[in-house]
């Protein structure tokens, strides 16, 4: 996946001279996950900027540059570090278009890996989707395959709104054949992964793979799940989701976010508000436990949702 993201960056930076990249070790080092490997040589120091470890200020500088017409892509080396820039992301990035009465646009992209990795410890295994989801004016997408990573990053760079692109630490080495021709993905669209008729499973990012693994087991047991990768975390693609729920009447949300105040919590509310009459069972949500991610491998596995739990949940819903 990192190659796909890298291709997206190269294509957009070639197309538009105002696109630049700001982050720690994105230049000479090539990016801690190799997303910007070689870009500094291609585009020069002024377009691929190595910053000191100062998230608050370089995110703020990205917003200031965006106010003046550039299109920066700010990389958080790990999403968790962007908590230091929360004020800039929330108050300036999200709100300036509104508080200035529409005068300033902030076409910034904030991207970085988050999620639970392989024993990275509590502070490097954070999921910030839930913290950012309430910020008005921000759009959020989560990529999960090389194809949608490239498409979503390109769309995010071209969008006039500030977009946060959530990548996942464990998905960078995914390989997939993607088209040579140029394509972009729609930022607000969900992706149909496996059409089905019995139950709608909504997921995003790494949990998509756990869901697909569970889906194999479920199909063997005779179930027919419909799997949708929601991709757009803010706003939700209620059109695709609604169409699915009207077909299956049962919904399960599988997310890596924390249970409390997570994406699943908002998604369940949105489903209840809009599709209550179409539901035959309560909308269920499987999320990570409300704990700091422990270091020990067995404990870490127990923090996130595993395929076996997904299978059990579907069986429960479909009774």
């Amino acid at each position, binding site marked *: 996946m990192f190659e796909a993201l890298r291709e997206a960056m190269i294509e957009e930076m070639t197309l538009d001279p105002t696109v630049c990249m700001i982050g720690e070790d994105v230049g000479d080092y090539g990016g801690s996950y190799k997303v910007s490997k070689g870009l500094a040589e291609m585009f020069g120091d002024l377009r691929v900027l190595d910053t000191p470890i100062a998230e608050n200020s370089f995110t703020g500088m990205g917003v200031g540059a965006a*106010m003046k017409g550039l299109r920066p892509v700010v990389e958080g080396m790990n999403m968790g570090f962007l908590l230091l820039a929360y004020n*800039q992301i929330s108050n300036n990035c999200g709100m300036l278009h509104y508080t200035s*009465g529409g005068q*300033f646009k902030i076409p910034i992209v904030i991207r970085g890996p988050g999620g639970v990795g392989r024993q990275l410890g509590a502070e490097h295994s954070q999921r910030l989707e839930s913290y950012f989801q309430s910020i*008005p*004016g921000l759009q959020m997408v989560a990529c999960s395959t090389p194809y949608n990573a490239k498409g979503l990053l390109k769309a995010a760079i071209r*969008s006039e709104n500030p977009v946060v692109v959530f990548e996942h630490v464990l998905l960078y080495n995914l390989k997939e054949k993607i088209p040579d021709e140029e394509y972009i993905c*729609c930022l607000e669209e969900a992706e149909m992964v496996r059409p089905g008729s019995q139950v709608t499973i909504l997921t995003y990012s790494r949990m998509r793979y756990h869901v697909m693994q569970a889906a194999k087991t479920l199909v063997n047991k005779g179930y027919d799940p419909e799997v949708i990768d929601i991709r757009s975390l803010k*706003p939700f*693609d209620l059109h695709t989701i609604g169409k699915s729920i009207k077909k299956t009447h049962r919904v399960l949300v599988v997310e890596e976010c924390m249970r409390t105040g997570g994406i699943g919590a908002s998604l369940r509310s949105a489903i209840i508000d809009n599709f209550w009459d179409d539901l035959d069972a309560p909308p269920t949500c499987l999320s990570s436990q409300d704990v700091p991610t422990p270091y020990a491998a067995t404990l870490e596995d127990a923090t996130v949702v595993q395929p076996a739990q997904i299978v059990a949940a579907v069986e429960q819903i479909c009774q």
Partner: protein
Amino acid sequence: MAAAALLRRLPAARSPAAALMGARPISDSTTPLTIETSMPFTSHIVDPPSRDVTTTPAELVTFFRDMSLMRRMEIAADSLYKAKLIRGFCHLYDGQEAVTVGMEAAITRKDSIITAYRDHCIYMSRGGDLVTAFAELMGRKIGCSRGKGGSMHFYKKDANFYGGHGIVGAQVPLGCGLAFAQKYRKEDSVSFALYGDGAANQGQLFEALNISALWKLPAILVCENNHYGMGTAEWRAAKSPSYYKRGDYVPGLKVDGMDVLAVKQACKFAKEHAIANGPIVLEMDTYRYHGHSMSDPGSTYRTRDEISGVRQERDPIERVRKLILAHDLATPAELKDMEKEIRKEVDTAIAQAKESPMPDASELFTNVYVKGFGVESFGADRKELRATLP
């Protein structure tokens, strides 16, 4: 000379020719005039500029007019706040007018300015008008931010005025970002990021200064030191209140912020420096007569004697008035007339703003996102799925 001066003090004794032509006796001459600043500049790792400032009679009269307009505007805002027409937070700039007027005289509209929440007068300096300012303060539709920003969110994009920010210190990285964009685009202009003595202790300032110095950005950090961060005096908040030295490896200049000519000289110097060498810190030694905001009486942490002392000794408008009178550029009566005109202007603008409507209910949802660019946001009733390449 003495006789002529005497004559000028008698209002009736105008020169017959002038009286016949109805000509304005207030000087609008543009012949250069050199005036010394009130005190020399103190500098940190850079040679300070000269104390002799070149100005013109016309410029001095403009300074007087602009600062008096701002003073009147802020005092009028005080009354409007007490009449509950302005709500929420209202941070007034009276006392500090010389900083924005002097700065504006040294730069062009291509240079960018960003500040915190004490922004009404800077908006005016950058070409804003009274009606949109008062309308915004009262939350009306014709306000400069369509009523959606309020006192702390004044912006003027076409004049490169970037606001208007409520969170202390957050505007400084933004200002360095503006400077970055200027350098990226090879624009030959600079960005002034204004902040207060309270904000000078924010970490993000030092982060942004480090990055600006590393990348040699044309950023000028201006500390408007009015000696109090809300209720905390500077000596209680900063171990080193020499804010112009805080840049460490970045040069700095300390300026008498109540002397508009000193401010002009310093900003001119800073602009040349920033374009050639990268960031510089300016500390403007200034004072605010009002409290931190309208909710703060401003007298619990400082004495009334101190406030009136500054008003008597260092008021920026009085200083310019004395200069104008000393150089015979206008009579006291003419200046008084100007102030009366200004008062009327402000009152008219307020009346107009008071009559203007509140924003429509639909405005609640506009400008949250930029619409119509390639991909649209839809709700549950979206009929078509389409991605368009812009």
